[in-house]
Every structure is written in C-alpha cells, then in structure tokens.
C-alpha cells in the first residue's frame, strides 16, 4: 500500500477495494463454505429448474415459460449449427446450452440486489468450464480425425503448407490451438467479471465514503460517483451477457474447427 492510501485510511477509515474484496469470509466457518459457493449451487438450481419447467410440457403450441426456454435454447442451438455444421452439432447442444445458461446466471448474480457477486470473479469456478470446453473440442477433434495423431496433424499443420516453414509453424499452431485456448477462455471470463465487480464496489463504497466525509465538495464528487456507478451497472448488464455469449461462441467455434475437414 502506498503512503497516499495510508493517508486516506487514516483520515476516513476508507479502504479502497482490491483483490481482497473477493476473499469473502466463510458463511459456514467450520466447512469453509463461502457465499460464491452457495451462489454457484443456487445457479444450478435455477438453471435446472428453469429449463426443466420450460421443457417439461414440450407442447406444440408453447406457453410463456416454454417459449422463453425455447428462445434461449434456439439461440444456442442456432449458434451451434452455424459453427459446427448440421451433421454433428446436436451432440454438442446439451453441453453448449448448459454452459451458456450456467455462465449467464452466475454472471447476473453480480447485478442482482443482495446477491451482488459474480461467481466467475473467482477463477476457481471458471477453470473447470474452460477445461471442459478444452476436453470437448480436443475430444471432438480426435474423434473426427481418427486419434490423437490425426488430430494433432489437423490442428498444427495448416493445409497446403510444406517444407521447413513447418518447423516454425507446427509449434506455434500447437501453442495457439491446443495450449493457449483454455487459458484465454478462463482469463477472459474471469477478468471481465473481476474487473466489473471491482468497478461497481469502487463506485459504491467510494461514493459512500465521499458522501459521509462531511466535506461538501467531496459530497458532490460522491454523488457523481453514484451516477457513474449506475452507468457502469448498465454497462455490466451488457458485459455479463456478452461474456456468457463469447465463452459459448468460442467453445462452439473451437469444436467446429476441430471437426472441420480442412482448414
């Protein structure tokens, strides 16, 4: 901490939010159960409950709930068909649909009053999803190209390129297509949620600290901070959807690329 930070703290007892704001104390001390863990479990209940209730009747003429569920389902299904192709996409629709809704619900926790914590600002929850996407697309590639070697050739040797350039190209392609993808998938989602939540608590707690500082000028800035915080909340609404969409879209594209006949 800088001396300036120490100074502010000394004056107003305000502590600027940082990575520590994401280390919540356990709700159940003895089991180490934290709020994000409970939220994650709740998200499973919400996703399963919503999809099951909306899909249960499977009516030809859908009711409101079924229509809502089908809209989301049709959105992901269309995404999968466009990127994977109509031959194999149905195998991946359950995974992609679960993925999209699971991320969406957990992201929107960040903006729902009282919950107000996006689960995926904890990278521990993001890693399994990225790993699963990695396993799914690598597995699809191995299935489509007859084993690990066939897939490696498909993934690392762009069609039509021969000669010594391959010495350079193969490691690069391997690095970018096989190693980096799960990392970028994780970091993108985690980073957006982490930064978004940090911004929101900064505007909220900072605004509150300024308003209660007793200084009229600081109070005006505090109101400005609240207004900006509301603006950022709307921005976050968009980002939360976009990150769920991007994670799903990229997983879909990776699968489609792994299944493709040629580059």
């Amino acid at each position, binding site marked *: *901490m800088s001396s300036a930070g120490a100074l502010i*703290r000394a004056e107003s*007892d305000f*502590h600027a939010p*940082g*990575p*520590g*704001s*994401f*280390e919540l*104390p356990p709700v159940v001390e003895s089991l*180490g159960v934290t709020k*994000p*863990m409970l939220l*994650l*479990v709740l*998200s*499973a209940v919400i*996703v*399963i409950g919503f*999809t*099951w209730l909306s*899909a*249960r009747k*499977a*009516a*030809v003429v*859908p009711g409101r709930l*079924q229509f809502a*569920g*089908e809209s989301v*389902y049709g959105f992901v299904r269309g995404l999968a068909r466009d990127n994977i192709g109509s031959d194999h996409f*149905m195998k991946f*629709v*359950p*995974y992609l*649909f*679960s*993925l999209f*809704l*699971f991320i969406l619900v957990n992201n929107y926790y960040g903006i729902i009053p009282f919950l107000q914590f996006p689960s995926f600002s*904890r*990278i*521990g*929850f*993001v*890693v*399994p*999803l990225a790993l*699963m996407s990695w396993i799914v697309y690598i597995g699809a590639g191995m299935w489509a190209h007859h084993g690990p070697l066939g897939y490696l050739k498909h993934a690392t040797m762009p069609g039509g390129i021969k000669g010594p350039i391959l010495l350079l190209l193969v490691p690069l392609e391997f690095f970018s297509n096989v190693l980096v993808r799960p990392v970028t998938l994780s970091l993108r989602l*985690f980073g957006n949620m*982490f930064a978004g939540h940090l911004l929101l608590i900064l505007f909220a707690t900072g605004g509150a600290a300024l308003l209660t500082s007793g200084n009229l000028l600081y109070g005006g800035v505090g109101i400005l901070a609240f207004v900006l915080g509301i603006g950022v909340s709307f921005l976050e609404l968009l980002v939360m959807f976009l990150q769920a969409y991007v994670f799903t879209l990229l997983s879909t594209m990776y699968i489609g690329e792994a299944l493709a006949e040629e580059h």
Partner: protein
Amino acid sequence: MNTAVVLAAEEAHNPLLPVWSEVILGSIVFLIVLFAVWKFVVPSFEKAYAERTAAIEGGLSAAETKQAEADAKLAELERQLADARHEAARIREEAREQGAQIVADMRAQAQAEATRIVEHGKAQIEAERQQAVTSLRAEVGTLATGLAGRIVGESLDDEARQSRVVERFLAELEASN
C-alpha cells in the same frame, strides 16, 4: 478493524490462482447441470421442435392435398356442366329437326290421304255413274221401246232399226240436258 483481516487475505491469495475446493465444486455443480439438461431438457425441447415441424408440415401438405382435390373437383364439375350444356343444345337441335320432320311428314301424309280420298271418291262416283248410265241406258231403251211399241202399235222387230231409234232418242235426251 476488518482492514487488517482483509489486508492479510489480500496478501495471502493471488486472485489468479484457483482455490481447489472451488474448482472441484464448480466441476461437480456444472456436471450436474449438464447431466440434467442432457437427460431431460434437450430431448424435451427437441421433441417439441420435431412435433411442431411435423404439425406444420403435415398441415401444409394436408392443405395442399385439399386444394388439389378441390381444384380437380371444380374442373370435373365445370367439365360436366359444359357437357350437359352441350348435350342440352344437341337435344334441343335434334328435337327441333325432328319436330320439323314430323310436321312435314304429317303434312305430306295428310295431303296424300286427302288426294287418295278425293281420287277414290271420284273413281267411285265415275264408276257408279258409268254403271247407272249403262243400266239406265239398257233399261231406258227397253222401256222406251216397249212404250213406243205400245203407243205406235207396231212392233219394232227389226233389231237394227229399233236400236237406231233408241240411240237417236237418247242422243236427243242428252243434248237437251
């Protein structure tokens, strides 16, 4: 104050390093979601999709069949109507011709009958007249001869003369008529 706790936690944990309990929990929770969606949700949605597609396509093809049937029926009826009109016209024409024919036939027949009756009548009258003339001539001759013989008192035995006298008498009679 909390600050100390928070600061301690902040230094203890790098946010980029996953907490293993969270990784395990996240995996399990997501796999449960995936299982439920895979087993119950997606088949149900797909079933609804398939049924809807079938219903729409079935409805469309049924409508097309109905339309085609209706078109065929309409064409058939129109054809029948045209046939019937044609038939009616033909029958009318035929009847007109037949009527004219019948009228002509009847007229000819009546004409012939009338002619025949007239002819017959004429012939009969002629025959009767001839007969009457013949018998009258013979009878009148005999009567006249007898009468003249009686009046004159002389026998007109001479055949030739008698005959001549009668003829002359009759000729005068006819001339005076």
